[in-house]
C-alpha cells in the first residue's frame, strides 16, 4: 500500500519530485550509517583491545588494528580467575529465572485475561502499580527477610522469587492472551475441560512466541543482573559472571586486554541470543508498548 502511495505521488508531481525524495533518503541513509559507527566502533574496539599485547594496550593514540593478534589472551584471561565456576553459577541462576518466569507468569496472566472473578480489576491495578515502586524501597526489607530465613549466601533469593511472577511479564502475557478469542476457551469449557487443563493443553501450546519473548528477556535480565548477586552471594565460589568480572577489575586493574577479553566472552551469549531471537525481543516491546501508549 505504501508503495502504491509513493507511486501516486511520483506520478502526480513528476520526476523532479522523485529526485528530491531520493536525495533525502540518501542523506537519511548516510546519517544512519554515521550513527551506526557509535555501535560498531566500541564493539570493534573491545575486540581489538582484547587481542593486543600489554604494551600495545597503552599506546597513545591507540591502534585500530592490533599489530599482533594475541588470541590466547582469551584463554589466559578466562583462566586467570575461576570464570568457569562463575559461568556455571550464572547458567544455574538463569535456568531457574527463565523456568520460573515462563511457568508462573503465563499461569497468572491466564487468570487475569480469561477468568472472571471478584477483585480481578483491583488486583490488576495493583500489579500495574507495583511497576512504579522503586526497587530500592523493597530491597532492604527483602534483604532482612532473606537474612531471617537464612537464605543470604545461597542462590535461593535469586532463584525462588521468579516463580512468583513479575508485573511486567504478567502484563505483557495478559495483553497477548486477551487476543485469544473467548469462544475458543468457552467451547473447551462447555466440553468439560477445567481451566487448568485449558491453560496447559490449549493456551501454553499456542503461546509459543509470547513465551519465547518472556524466556529471552528473563534470561537477559538474569544474565546481566548485578545487584541481586551483589547482595545475596557472599562466597567467591557462588559468584556469577557479573560479580566475578567486577572482582576481576579489582584484581588486574588496567590490564585492558584481559578485561576486554573477558567482557567479550561474557557478552557473547547475549549477542548470540539477540541475533538469533531478535524478533522476540522486539515483539516483547510491541506487546507491552501497545497498551501503555
Amino acid at each position, binding site marked *: 500500500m505504501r508503495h502504491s502511495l509513493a507511486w501516486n505521488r511520483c506520478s502526480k508531481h513528476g520526476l523532479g519530485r522523485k529526485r528530491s525524495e531520493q536525495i533525502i*533518503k540518501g542523506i537519511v541513509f548516510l546519517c*544512519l550509517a554515521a550513527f551506526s559507527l557509535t555501535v560498531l566502533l566500541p564493539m570493534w574496539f573491545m575486540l581489538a583491545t582484547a587481542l593486543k599485547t600489554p604494551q600495545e594496550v597503552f599506546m*597513545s593514540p*591507540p591502534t585500530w588494528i592490533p599489530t599482533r593478534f594475541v588470541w590466547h589472551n582469551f584463554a589466559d584471561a578466562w583462566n586467570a580467575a575461576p570464570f568457569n565456576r562463575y559461568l556455571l553459577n550464572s547458567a544455574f541462576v538463569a535456568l531457574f529465572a527463565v523456568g520460573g518466569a515462563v511457568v508462573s507468569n503465563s499461569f497468572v496472566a491466564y487468570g487475569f485475561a480469561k*477468568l472472571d472473578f471478584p477483585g480481578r480489576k483491583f488486583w490488576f491495578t495493583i500489579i500495574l502499580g507495583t511497576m512504579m515502586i522503586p526497587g530500592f*524501597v523493597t530491597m*532492604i526489607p527483602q534483604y532482612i527477610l532473606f537474612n531471617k530465613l537464612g537464605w543470604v549466601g545461597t542462590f535461593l533469593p535469586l532463584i525462588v522469587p521468579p516463580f*512468583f511472577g513479575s508485573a511486567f511479564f504478567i502484563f505483557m502475557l495478559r495483553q497477548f492472551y486477551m487476543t485469544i478469542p473467548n469462544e475458543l476457551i468457552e467451547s473447551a469449557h462447555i466440553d468439560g475441560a477445567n481451566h487448568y487443563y485449558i491453560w496447559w493443553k490449549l493456551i501454553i501450546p499456542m503461546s509459543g512466541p509470547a513465551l519465547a519473548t518472556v524466556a529471552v528477556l528473563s534470561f537477559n535480565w538474569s544474565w546481566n543482573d548485578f545487584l541481586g548477586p551483589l547482595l545475596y552471594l557472599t562466597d567467591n565460589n557462588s559468584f556469577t559472571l557479573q560479580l566475578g568480572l567486577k572482582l576481576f577489575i579489582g584484581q588486574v586493574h588496567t590490564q585492558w586486554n584481559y578485561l576486554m577479553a573477558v*567482557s567479550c566472552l561474557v557478552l557473547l551469549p547475549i*549477542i548470540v541470543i539477540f541475533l538469533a531471537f531478535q524478533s522476540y525481543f522486539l515483539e516483547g516491546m510491541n506487546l507491552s508498548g501497545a497498551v501503555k501508549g
Partner: protein
Amino acid sequence: MPEEAISFPLSSGISIPDTFYRSGSDDVATQQRSRSRWKKTLTGYSFIAPWLIGFIVFTGGPLLFSLYVSFTNYDVTSRMDWVGLDNFKRMFNSDPLFWKSVYNTLWYVFIGVPFSTVGAILLSTLLSQKVWGAGFFRMLFYMPTVLSGVAVYTLWMQMLGPSTGLVNTILRFFGIDGPAWLSDPAWTKPALVLMRLWSLGTSMMLYLSAMHSVPEQLYEAAEIDGAGRVRRFFIITLPMISPIIFFDIIVSMIGAFQVFQEAYVMSKDNQGGPASSLLFYNLHLFNQAFTNFNMGYAAAMAWFLFLIVMAITLVNMAVSKYWVHYEGGDKR
C-alpha cells in the same frame, strides 16, 4: 505474530479427549449458580495465587515493613528501637552526603533524560524513513540495550580512558582535547549521560512503533496543503506520538532516579568517587544499608525516594494535558 499463534490451533482443530465429556449434571439451577460462583472465584484466585503470594511476601509486606523500619534505628543484628522522625531529620539536616547525592541524581535525571528522549526520537524518525537497510540499522541501534551489566561498564571504562580511550581518540581526530572523564569530578556525570545515550533502544522502539501507527492520510493532507518535511514532523508526527513521549519520559525519569550499577562499578572505590561526583541517591542508600548497616536510615531514604518519584509522576500527569494530544479526545 499473534495472528499466527492463534490460527494454528484453530486451523488444526482442537481435539479434546473423550475423557472430557461428562454426562450432563442434574443439579438444581439455583444451587448450581451459587456453587459455580464460588468455583469461579476459587479458580480465579488459584490462578493469580502465585503472584498474590509473591506480592504479599516480596513486595507488599516488605513495603509496609520498610515504612516501619524507617522510623527505627534497625541495624540487622541487635537494635530496633522506635526513633520517630530522627532518620528524616538526620537526612535533611546533618548528612551533607545526602544533599550531594540528591544534587548528583537530579543532575543525571534532568540532563540525561532530555538527551536520551531527543536522541531516541531522532533515531526513530530516521529509521521510519524506509531507507535501504532500515531493518539492519534498527537491529544495530537496539543491540546495546540488551548488552548491559559489568561487561559493558568495563568497555566504557576503557573507552573513556583519558589518553588511550576511544572517545578521546575520536575527539582528537576532530581537534578537540577530551577531558579525563571518569577521573575528573566535573566530567563523571557527563560521561554517564554519554553512556546512557548508547542504549536508548527501548525508547527508540516505542517511538518507532508509534510513528508507524500514524495514519498516512494525515501526511498526505498536510503535503497537499504545502507543508514540508520538517513542518510535517512538527505538526503531525510529534503531536500524534505525544502520548508515547509522555509515557517514555515518565518511565525514563523513574529509571534515571534509580541509577546505581554504573556508579557502583565505574567509580573507583565503589563509593561514588572522585570527590563524590558519582554518589547518586541509590549509591548513598546502598552504602548506608549494606556498608554501615544503618538499615533504618536507608529505609527512610528509600521512602523519601518513593515519595519523590510518585510526586514527579503526578506532576507529569498534571502537566501532560497541556501538551499531550490524545486522538479522539479521550483522556486516558
